[in-house]
């Protein structure tokens, strides 16, 4: 392939990936309700989001849900990564396969499986069902993120600590966690993003008592393209951008 064709092709794919997002962002600042023509710069659409109290309410719900789900998923996901790396135990291979399967499986399969269980147990849909579902959704991603970092560790450190009389918990607390902090932080941030963006699982396991942002956006988007929606989407895009850039070095460049 010659050099020019290569550049042209790469740039075209990036344009394809970014142009639609760029348009949403640009039009969130356009001072016109429907026009395609640029009518001047405005923050009006962002201001109107701030005055929408129903929207602020669901945003607050999503924030709480995201923080709690990300935190519990990070604790369990980290325990999974550490156990897979350090211990031999019953069902270790199954656990490895299960994490892999949970990441690949379409969200709708997990969503209706959880909905079935909640219904059989007669748990009313609302905050708790969402929290448990989002935590389950995020666990495999944290486990994989932390595991990819932990396999780069030198086992000698643990041997040395054990020879000096450290218990497993001391090793976990004083050696593993401090060394893993960047990966754990990325796992947490990515989980928070997953929870904030999840439509499919939330759609099935939420109730009328606890509205959340992704479902609110879904109901807004169904009504068509609007400048307020552009503004809201831009805010969330900015947040994702922030999270990915923060996490990037600790996950995706693990081989360096």
């Amino acid at each position, binding site marked *: 392939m010659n050099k020019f064709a290569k550049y042209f092709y790469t740039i075209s*794919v990036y344009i394809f990936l970014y142009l639609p*997002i760029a348009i949403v962002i640009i039009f969130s600042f356009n001072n016109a309700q429907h026009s395609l023509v640029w009518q001047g710069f405005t923050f009006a659409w962002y201001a109107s989001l701030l005055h929408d109290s129903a929207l602020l309410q669901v945003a607050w719900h999503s924030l709480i849900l995201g923080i709690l789900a990300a935190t519990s998923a990070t604790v*369990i996901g980290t325990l999974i990564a*550490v156990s897979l790396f350090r211990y031999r135990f019953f069902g270790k291979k199954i656990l490895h396969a299960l994490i*892999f399967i949970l990441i690949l*499986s379409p969200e709708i399969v997990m969503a209706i499986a959880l909905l079935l269980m909640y219904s059989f147990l007669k748990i009313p849909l609302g905050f708790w069902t969402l929290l448990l579902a989002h935590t389950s959704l995020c666990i495999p991603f944290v486990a994989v993120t932390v595991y990819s970092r932990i396999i780069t560790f030198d086992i000698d450190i643990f041997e040395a600590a054990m020879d000096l009389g450290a218990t497993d918990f001391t090793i976990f607390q004083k050696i593993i966690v401090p060394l893993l902090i960047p990966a754990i932080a990325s796992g947490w941030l990515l989980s928070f993003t997953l929870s904030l963006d999840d*439509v*499919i699982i939330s759609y099935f396991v939420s109730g009328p008592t606890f509205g959340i942002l992704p479902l609110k956006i879904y109901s807004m988007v169904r009504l068509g393209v609007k400048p307020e*929606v552009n503004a809201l989407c831009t805010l969330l895009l900015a947040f*994702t951008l922030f999270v990915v850039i923060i996490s990037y070095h600790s996950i995706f460049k693990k081989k360096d």
Partner: protein
Amino acid sequence: MKKKASFFKIFSVSVIWLWLGIFALTPIFLTFITSFLTSDSNSIVKLTPTLANYSDLLNHAYFSILLQSLYLATSCTIICLIIGYPFAFIIARSQSKHRSLLLLLVIIPFWTSSLIRTYAIMAILKAKGILNGLLLALGIIDQPLQILYSNMAVLIGCVYDLLPFMILPLYTNIEKLNQSYLEAAKDLGANWFTTFIKILIPLTMPGIIAGSVLVFLPTMTMFYIPVLLGGAKNLLLGNLIEHQFLTANNWPLGTAISVIITLFMGIFILIYWRNSDEEDRESLV
């Protein structure tokens, strides 16, 4: 100094299995069981075992949705592969100082909400959207094209949404490919086509399969893409599940569809397992 299993180990392993047992294995098991039960208007299910849910799926209306979903998922996967493979190859072989930036630019859309990205496609394709505005201004067309709310729009949306999920596994695979194989093939007189078919494709098979799973399965099940871009005229399996669960109240039929989707996933995973080694699996995701 090896002691018997520490308290911490017992604690961790119990927490992990308790959680996964309750929130992963039990729900999956319930789905499987429910797909063999009879639907009932008063409660969730009647405990009468039946195969009716699966045979219902073979009837005309449902079966055509299944075929339509498979057709869309296959086209989407092939298009993503055709666009994504050369792209992943180029960035994996780019100078290492640029590579991390090029990769980051793929990872950002990978983590961006697919609902928001679907919305962005809606904004582009609508009758008074950018695409039509541009084509009209350039004089290529004289009436706005009705792309939104068609099968074409759904396909474009799926490709747009899922392309990063194809590129990333391919990239991981191509990046660790040993360049000397390609050089050896060239030295031995293979042309680029032979090298591609005989060397490159077999060596990057794990990446190709992983990318295909990550594109194929979501295409069949992302119910909001057909709703937003197809105008809910062209339903797919995801919409059918949603309808059975939230409107028609026929949960056993809904779970039967979910079991079929899981089956497809199982087939993919088996193919992947046979074509990958330990290292491939660890580098996935």
